[in-house]
């Protein structure tokens, strides 16, 4: 491995034990408590970290005491030494725990600690009684000795071997054709031009072509029109909005923390979303893209620069990648070590399933059942993150963002925001009052005999949490709730007027909020240079510590005889461990067996509806075999040779004959290749939620082109429908810019398989359920957009000729002309609909447009 040769890698973490003993101890650590060997500080430190260091550790040293090391224990604090070797009963550490002075009863919940168990106390006592013995550096890390837990045999699995391929003389089509021929098949004919246009547009930018572009490509007599179209689409800013979304799924992007029902909103998660979109648009090399997301904070010492640049901000925003999972540790009661470990494990899962194609999390509780990943390797990887994600040195919610911005950004915040914030504050107050007016009017209308005192008491009751209301208060609130849900047309004029005031205020607030300069906060992950030691947790349980491990990567992906080399990135500056930087560098080595393969396979999956390896997240022993191993390797090597350029990869794939095939399935295909593993044809694909919604908006001329920034708010009505408000222009932005609060996923997106992020989504479901037709047929918003679409068509065909209408509807919605039959059906349907609508041709066209948007031809891409 050439990273061994890199001259700047200086610090080597060497194990002290020879690997035989190391192997034995790890195995022992997994199965049984550690007490078979002589007791030492590593039996005690995990207990002290878990129970004591919240008050006497990295963040606070109450009473001047720091218990993180045996030295600190002996040094003690204001009350003297915490331990007296050999004398447990005389040691303050034991005394305080025994008489329950520590941890103090009143602070248990504040510091999220629990008392030591009697077994733990026994271990502490035993260690002190034994004279508080210490053994030097026992951290288990990879050494130059062969690894006994992972054998050479284990490394033979195809995906653990570096990809090998000769680039010259091969093409994608060559590999595909070879397999087709062996199976007595051949390529399907090329799809027709309008199919290719629609396919490429929806594939690359997630939108159909405009009429102008459709006409241009359809009429072009340039023999290179197709590849020019691909280049044109790759240059579109919409490209990043489409392909960035796939990456956001992989990262588990969400605009809220989740975990508790309050589901707090993540105010600046969108900065990461914009970073991803921009990176795709700029075709940032994938190795760089990973480097920034995994170790952006270790690239530049932003705290020690004369001026913060945009690039520095971007690097920090990128690390949001590892902070997208569910994080309930901001809650009043859910910030104990097990919950923190859950957050860390989610980050590792995202990295494993998304980037490495491994089910690493299986090794959290026990060595992996199928893959040669010992539990030790999971914890070595956890140690890589310990400098930033430290369950014993956890940052509170308030301190878990960095405030870093360029001088220009800061200047803008300072000048733009204060007056706006002042206005917003006043409006918020008005909104509160207006909402109360609505409530009072409702009570006055429906309960005319209720006293004004009771009405006022209702408002008071609403200010209390529902579970602390008295019975009287509960009943008052219930009375109000009962009339709040009645249909609007049954409400009095004064209620309706008061509600209008509320909705106007809401709109005004939304407009002002959009004008605010984004705050300088960044939801980053950053190393703080003081990692706690990392112990294997037996059965994954936070209070069952095993052996001490150091940072490292899964042994099976190395030769097993190479130490994981870490260096501090800023020796003279901000302290950082450099562990994640080392990980990112290792991941993006050209010999890495997985990084490039996993990525090219994902890109392939999005183009063809299935990967060459179908289990995108699992290249391990239980994953599926690649259908075309040689092609996979060729693509991986080609990709790296092309400077890790994803856009170049798209060009290779989309210009291939394989991609340009028709999606028509012949009987022969069904017989020989029923699952299309050989790619004897292009599969049809259903539009995903984003493509579907964005296309409808685009076709109806209702798509707002504003890019980036804070997400668009959603509203939840009492029936549970989550809908999206329009912008001040009465239009809607692309789906990627909506707010994705975990508990408020917009109903349209949810219906068409927008995923539950748990913690991420490696592959979306494609479901076919009746709620989809119900949404498309009955939803008011879909209907309104159909009407807007119809108005647009009506305006463009002044003749009013039904045939022209049908023609235009097809070109807008399906990017092609109707067939003769379809045209005839359309004309007679319009005629019939006009009768049904009492001779109203405008309404007839609306119904027609709505029907086309409901058709399979619209939903599926050939």
């Amino acid at each position, binding site marked *: 491995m050439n990273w061994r040769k890199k001259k700047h890698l200086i610090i080597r973490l060497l194990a002290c034990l020879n690997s035989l003993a190391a192997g034995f101890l790890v195995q022992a650590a997994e199965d049984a408590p550690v007490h078979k060997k002589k007791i030492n500080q590593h039996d005690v430190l995990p207990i002290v970290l878990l129970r004591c260091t919240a008050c006497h550790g990295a963040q606070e040293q109450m009473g001047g005491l720091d218990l993180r090391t045996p030295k600190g224990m002996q040094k003690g604090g204001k009350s003297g030494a915490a331990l007296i070797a050999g004398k447990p009963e005389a040691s303050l550490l034991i005394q305080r725990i025994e008489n329950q002075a520590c941890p103090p*009863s*009143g602070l*248990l919940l504040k510091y999220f600690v629990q008392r030591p168990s009697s077994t733990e106390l026994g271990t502490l006592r035993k260690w002190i009684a034994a004279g508080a013995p210490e053994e030097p550096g026992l951290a288990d890390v990879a050494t130059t000795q062969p690894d006994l837990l992972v054998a050479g045999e284990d490394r033979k699995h195809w995906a653990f071997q570096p990809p090998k391929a000769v680039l010259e003389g091969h093409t994608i089509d060559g590999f595909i054709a070879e397999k087709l021929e062996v199976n007595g098949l051949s390529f399907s004919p090329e799809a027709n031009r309008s199919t290719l246009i629609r396919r490429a547009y929806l594939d690359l930018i997630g939108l159909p072509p405009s009429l102008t572009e459709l006409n241009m490509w359809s009429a072009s007599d340039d023999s290179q029109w197709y590849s020019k179209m691909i280049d044109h689409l790759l240059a579109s800013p919409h490209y990043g909005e489409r392909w960035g979304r796939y990456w956001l799924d992989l990262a588990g992007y969400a605009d809220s923390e989740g*975990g*508790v*029902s309050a589901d707090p909103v993540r105010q600046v998660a969108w900065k990461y979303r914009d970073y991803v979109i921009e990176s795709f648009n700029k075709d940032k090399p994938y190795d760089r893209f990973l480097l920034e997301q995994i170790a952006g904070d270790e690239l530049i010492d932003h705290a020690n620069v004369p001026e913060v640049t945009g690039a520095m901000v971007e690097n920090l925003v990128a690390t949001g990648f590892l902070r997208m999972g*569910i994080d*309930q540790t901001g809650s009043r*009661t859910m910030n104990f070590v097990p919950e923190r470990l859950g957050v860390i494990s989610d980050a590792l899962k995202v990295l494993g*399933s998304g980037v490495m194609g491994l089910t690493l999390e*299986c090794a959290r509780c026990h060595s992996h059942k199928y893959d040669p990943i010992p539990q030790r390797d999971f914890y070595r990887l956890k140690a890589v993150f310990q400098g930033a994600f430290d369950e014993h040195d956890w940052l509170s919610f308030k301190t878990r963002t960095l405030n870093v911005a360029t001088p220009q950004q800061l200047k803008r915040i300072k000048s733009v925001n204060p007056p706006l914030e002042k206005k917003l504050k006043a409006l918020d107050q008005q909104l509160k009052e207006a909402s109360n007016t609505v409530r009072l009017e409702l009570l006055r209308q429906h309960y005319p005999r209720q006293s004004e005192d009771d009405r006022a008491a209702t408002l008071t009751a609403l200010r209390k949490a529902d*579970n*602390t*209301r*008295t*019975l009287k208060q*509960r009943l008052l609130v*219930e009375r109000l*709730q*009962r009339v709040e*849900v009645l249909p609007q047309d049954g409400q009095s004029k004064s209620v309706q007027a008061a509600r209008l005031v509320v909705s106007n205020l809401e709109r005004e607030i939304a407009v002002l909020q959009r004008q605010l300069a984004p705050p300088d906060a960044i939801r980053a992950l950053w190393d703080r240079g003081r990692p706690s030691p990392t112990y294997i947790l037996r059965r994954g349980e936070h209070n069952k510590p095993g052996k001490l491990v150091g940072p490292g990567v899964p042994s099976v992906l190395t030769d097993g005889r190479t130490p994981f080399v870490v260096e501090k990135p800023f020796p003279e500056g901000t302290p950082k461990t450099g562990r994640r930087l080392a990980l990112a560098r290792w991941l993006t080595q050209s010999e890495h067996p997985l990084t490039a393969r996993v990525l090219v396979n994902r890109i392939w999956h999005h183009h063809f509806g299935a990967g060459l390896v179908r289990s995108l*997240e*699992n290249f391990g022993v239980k994953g599926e075999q690649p259908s075309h191993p040689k092609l996979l390797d060729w693509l991986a090597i080609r990709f790296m040779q092309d400077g890790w350029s994803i856009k170049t990869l798209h060009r290779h794939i989309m210009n291939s004959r394989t991609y340009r095939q028709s999606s*028509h399935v012949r009987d022969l*295909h069904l017989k020989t290749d029923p*699952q299309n593993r050989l790619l004897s044809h292009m599969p*049809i694909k*259903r539009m995903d939620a984003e493509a579907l919604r964005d296309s409808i908006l685009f076709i109806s001329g209702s798509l707002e082109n504003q890019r980036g920034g804070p997400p668009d708010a959603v509203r939840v009505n009492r*029936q*549970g429908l989550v809908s999206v408000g329009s912008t001040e222009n009465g239009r809607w932005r692309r789906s990627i810019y909506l707010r994705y609060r975990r*508990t408020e996923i917009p*109903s349209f997106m949810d219906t068409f*398989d927008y995923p*539950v992020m*748990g913690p991420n989504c*490696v592959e979306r*479901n*494609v*479901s*076919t*359920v*009746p*709620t989809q037709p*119900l949404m498309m*047929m*009955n939803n*008011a918003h879909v*209907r*309104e957009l159909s009407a807007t679409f119809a108005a647009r068509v009506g305006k463009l065909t002044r003749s009013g000729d039904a045939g022209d209408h049908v023609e235009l509807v097809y070109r807008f919605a399906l990017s092609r002309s109707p067939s003769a039959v379809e045209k005839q*059906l359309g004309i007679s*349907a319009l005629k019939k*609909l006009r009768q*049904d*609508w*009492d001779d109203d041709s405008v309404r007839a066209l609306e*119904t027609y447009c709505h*029907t086309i948007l409901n*058709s*399979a*031809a619209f939903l599926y891409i050939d």
Partner: protein
Amino acid sequence: MNPRKQFSFSRRDFFSRTRDGLLGGALTQLLCNDFFGGTEALAQAPQEPYNLKPKRSHHPARAKSVIQLFMNGGPSQMDLFDPKPVLNRMDGKPYPGSVEGIGNTSTTHVGVMMGGQYRFAKHGQSGLWMADVLPHTAHMSDEICLINSMWTDHPNHDNALYKIHSGRLFMGYPTLGAWTAYGLGSENQNLPAYVVLNDPLGPPKNGARNWTAGFLPPVYQGTSFRPTGSPILNLKAEYNQPAAATKSAQDLLKQLDKIHRTHRPHYPELAARIESYGLAARMQLSAGESLDVSRETAATRALYGIGEEPTNSYGRRCLMARRLVERGVRFVQIFLEEQPWDSHVDLADNHRAVCRRTDKPVAGLLRDLKQRGLLDSTLVIWGGEFGRTPTSQKSGDVYTGRDHNMQAFTTWMAGGGIRGGMAYGQTDEFGHQAVGDPVSVHDFHATVLHLLGLHHQKLFFTRSSLEERLTEFDHPRVLKEIIA
């Protein structure tokens, strides 16, 4: 498209045998058990899309369906089902143990011992204890098995709700209802397999996460039937259009989709999609009918307290639940708005009020199921996410309520193979902790699955190469003792 990820209600062979395919055939008989035949639970053919076809159980089932009367907020066990004379005697005295183990808030809010708030008596031939605020339920004692020794893992509503519904403390995991639908499918293809009936006053705490399919395919998710108006979101057009125009549009769509499909042979998902439009149309008819309690006799309605306050609302939902179960719906959950049992303040009054709303309807449901011969095949579950503390809790300046208690609570079951008239498990003398035959949430889930003919270990879903189960890796105990 990757067939592994194709989820749908139907498959091609089914579609090809449906004579008129599309929007006709409302309440069709075509989709009954015989038509599909059974398949072994979970032994889905690799290429078969996930669906709601009835599946064969692992062992003979005692219950065909479940009605879960979910009592959100945490009802107080020592006030309703589990009388504690020692606690009553100590009323007003300090708690004798460590207050750190009490409740979920700071220890400074722990008050003094609070005796039971209502009078208890023994009921039925079996002599089950019940408080006087549950007079109607008490009459049904001989059908009921009280489990007094339930315990859970978290004293917060959010997490305890996730736990009781999905077996995990966190969001994103499939609920008991979703696992049931996944394991057994449905006997009625015109209705969802898993239906949720919400309170018109509002959704429960945690909202739709109480009936999520988590990582299971969305076809197994609970469908919330709206309590007023049309029962499912978007079930009826939210715009005005003459019926004739809707009919013309449907005809056009049918023809266009037929052309589309004819030109694209061998894509089963296209047929499935066309069928989903048919199913949507049939649901528009049958969902409304199934919830229409006006089709019941006056006597039946009165049994549930419909037409009188404060039982009308809950009574309607209980009767709807019976109608749904009768039509083959597998799992019905009834919720109250937000969390009315959560009585940190004024417990005596608040609990009495919730009992008044629910007691008569619940008893009416049991009686009605029994007289129709449905109780044998319908498991009724009553309970919340945790119990309450033996001590009072300071809230504001008063000590009139109880805090959350994860260490003990009472859940009861009836019907569906349950032995009626028994109390199972014991708590300590204060009702604070389950001490005899403690029942974990996993034990509870395993028992419900068992009654449905499913084995908790055999019921799994493979996600990212991991086998996921409702009961995790634990080895839960099926409570054989409470099964008749």
